[in-house]
């Protein structure tokens, strides 16, 4: 049980480039209690892959399964299993964090009688009590990111997907986020997160996949990748894999 991407492919059309594969036959799996990293440079296809998994993009071919629910045939059930955090998703600026959490808790069908208790639990975990009733428009970037995380987990989803969650955050807030990801693992959740920061992936991920130009070029645990490439640092491994691909293509 967990998340499984099976040959996910997404073709886009662009006036300049014509038809192209943004994501091509991407497959990977992430199990309960595991942190899986999707590593790649900007434009590699990480976000598109995660958007297909979160059901807001329809795959051109292939599919993904979350706790055995298929994203193409049973998207509503899939959405119940998911929590999504991203650096670029917005917040309702005119609402307070409490109102946002209540809203998403209700939409995600979290039991009404337990919702207040759950909000208290989540906000305590993320140290949000001091700004829980301030409007989001008045919050700092770090506070907003905490609200985003709280919103993603308020319904206690078994699978958490994070799309470059630390982009634009300072070291302290990034640290809070890293702790939260590790906490999720302890809570036996399946965590998939994308990043282009290798140190972050090295620190957090149990397994990872290097994605470049829409394709998975290498995957496995850090040790497996080290053994395969003969290099120690993930950044070197990553550059080596990406360069090789560019040379092959040239």
């Amino acid at each position, binding site marked *: 049980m967990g998340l499984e991407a099976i040959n996910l492919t997404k*073709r*886009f*059309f*662009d006036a300049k480039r*014509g*038809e192209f594969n943004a994501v091509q036959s991407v497959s990977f799996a992430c199990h309960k209690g595991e942190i899986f990293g999707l590593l790649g440079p900007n434009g590699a296809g990480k976000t598109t892959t995660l*958007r297909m998994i*979160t*059901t*807001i*993009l*329809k795959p051109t071919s292939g599919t993904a399964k979350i706790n055995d629910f298929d994203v193409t045939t049973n998207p*509503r*059930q899939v*959405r*119940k299993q*998911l929590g*999504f955090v991203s650096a*670029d*998703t*917005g*917040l*309702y*600026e*005119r*609402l307070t964090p409490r*109102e946002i959490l209540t*809203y*998403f808790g*209700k*939409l*995600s*069908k979290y039991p009404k009688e337990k919702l207040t208790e759950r909000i208290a639990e989540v906000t305590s975990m993320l140290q949000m009590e001091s700004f829980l009733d301030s*409007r989001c428009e008045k919050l700092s970037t770090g506070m907003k990111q905490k609200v985003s995380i709280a*919103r993603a987990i308020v319904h206690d989803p078994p699978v958490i997907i994070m799309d470059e969650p630390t982009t634009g955050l300072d070291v302290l807030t990034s640290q809070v986020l890293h702790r939260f990801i590790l906490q999720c693992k302890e809570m036996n959740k399946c965590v998939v997160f994308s990043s282009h920061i290798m140190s972050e992936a090295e620190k957090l991920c149990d397994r990872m996949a290097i994605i470049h130009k829409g394709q998975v070029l290498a995957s496995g645990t850090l040790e497996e990748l080290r053994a395969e490439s003969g290099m120690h640092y993930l950044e070197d491994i990553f550059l080596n894999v990406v360069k090789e691909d560019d040379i092959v293509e040239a």
Partner: protein
Amino acid sequence: MRRDDFDEIITVFAKDLIEVLRDYRTLIVMIIMPAIIYPALLVLPSSVATHLKHDIKKKHYNIALIGDARAVIPSLRESKTLHLRQVLETGDPEKLLAAKVADIVVTFPDNFTDVIDNIKSTPRVQIFYDARRDQNLIALAEVRMALNMFRASVVQYRFKTLGVQTPQKYELNFSDIGEAKEQSLASEPVRNLLPFLLFTMLTVSIIYPALDVITGERERNTLPLLLMSPSDRHNIMFGKCLVVIVIGAGALLIGLLSIYLFIQIGGNKADDLLVLKFPLSAMVMCMLVSIPLVVTLSSLSILLASWCKTFQQGQGYFVPFLFAAMGASSVCSLPELKLSSGVAFIPVANTALSLKEVLSGHADPLWLCVSSVVAIAFAVYVTTVAARILDSERLLFGVADSRARRRLSGDFNPEIAILCFSVFLLMFYLGQTLQSWDIVVGSLITQVVVILLPAVYLLKHLRLPLRETMSLRMPHPLHILAALLITPLCVLTSMLVYNIQNYIVPAPEAFTTMFTRMIVESDKPLWLSLLGIAVAPGLCEELLFRGAILGLLRQRFKPISQCLITGALFGVFHMSIFRVGPTAVLGVVLTALAVWTESIVPSMIVHILNNSAAILMGKYHLEERFLSYWPITLVVGALGLILLIKVRPSKTGQ
């Protein structure tokens, strides 16, 4: 509706309502504008007119006299509005006017008194005034009246001196009896202005919240999160639509209440030029009747907002939307139009007309109900369509499907829209001109140039095989026989539908006699009429509708939808509200025939024979006789249908 659906709608509604109400821009369009600006727009013209009237009443006009005016002065002094400013022996009237010494200058000959006393000749009196000021016309009338009084007194005096008894003057005794229309809820200015004002007020008040709750979410990037929640898209959209409805209804209530108060407090004097009567009962009725309008316009604004990627884009669409809404309110100015004449079925226009009928006090409750039901059903449909657009990948992330892949998946909707738009436009400008020049020859040219060529060109452009796409294949021989057998039934059905439609939307006499004049009394030989009006449309229109359009719809839509869409387009294509019913029904039947037989030939046969029957029955007055054979028509038609059902193309190995 399930409990879950209801909960989802209410959750979205509550959150969006709080969010929208926390924005000062909503408060401006919802409260300030309806409370102050719209009532002022209604009351101000009346107040200005009344003040102008009072101004005119109070005003005194300065008059200057040049020349020998001694005899006239007493008559001029009797006028209450003329103030005798100067009496000069000589002077330049134009200079006096330019120096604003007087509003009006009257010149008299130097021997005026002598001429009057001795009846020497006709004295020349000239009146000078500044024609650029409308008010001077009143002064001119006053002066003329005073001079006429003077002339009458001179005549009277002369009769007296001659010892002639003047005839007694007959006076007409006038009295004004204003008969108030008891049934009318509001006075005429209010009845005429209010629908226009309400449409404007509603459109302005709902467009901002609609853009905020949908386009705003898209622009602020909160929509993806909402779409990742397990809520149903339709419920999200209904919740958002409900917010817009509440804001619209709130604005409407504030606006109507304010108009009511403005009229009550702002004065409704008996001598006002525009009598503004708007009692509480009219306000309540207006509110009730306008609810379906709020619902309809809210759903349309939601649909508009769903199409917009950014707020700026939405604001760009706002002006055309406002004009369209204001244009719809203009149905109130058509005096003969009534809900019962079929307008009850036309969304938006029906609520405008409901308002007018309610305010004028002769609304039919049945048609008001029909109008409301149509408005709400339309709103539900529009919101459902908007829900489908909500998660559009193109609008969410700016990604577009390849045109080639879209076409490969059988989605030709944009191409069909362009084809229909082009054909309708050509038909309107070129086709109608050609047919008004010569109904038969014009129709022939129209069929080929306006109808057939665009269809063939589009299929060629799309590189689709013509024969296959247009189903240009020979049907089973029994299908041809079946088509021949069902033709009389089609003719009978068309006549029946025409009569039903004529009952609901009565066609004017000019329309019913037009066909007779143009075809039956035409000097063209019968074969040419049949060629131009029966054979050519039977071939060309079929190739467009059952050929190109049906061919492009086939992959994407189910057979029932294919029939309904093609039939509706066929009905609209005939460009007459009085023919839309029968032609749409015929269109559905012909499409069903083409879908079932997988060939265009049977529908061509029925179409040609149907049009030929209309010409022949009109020319030889055979309608009555044809109708009298209805049992035979039914039996023959049933046989044709049985034959069609029994022989499917797949069974015949085609």
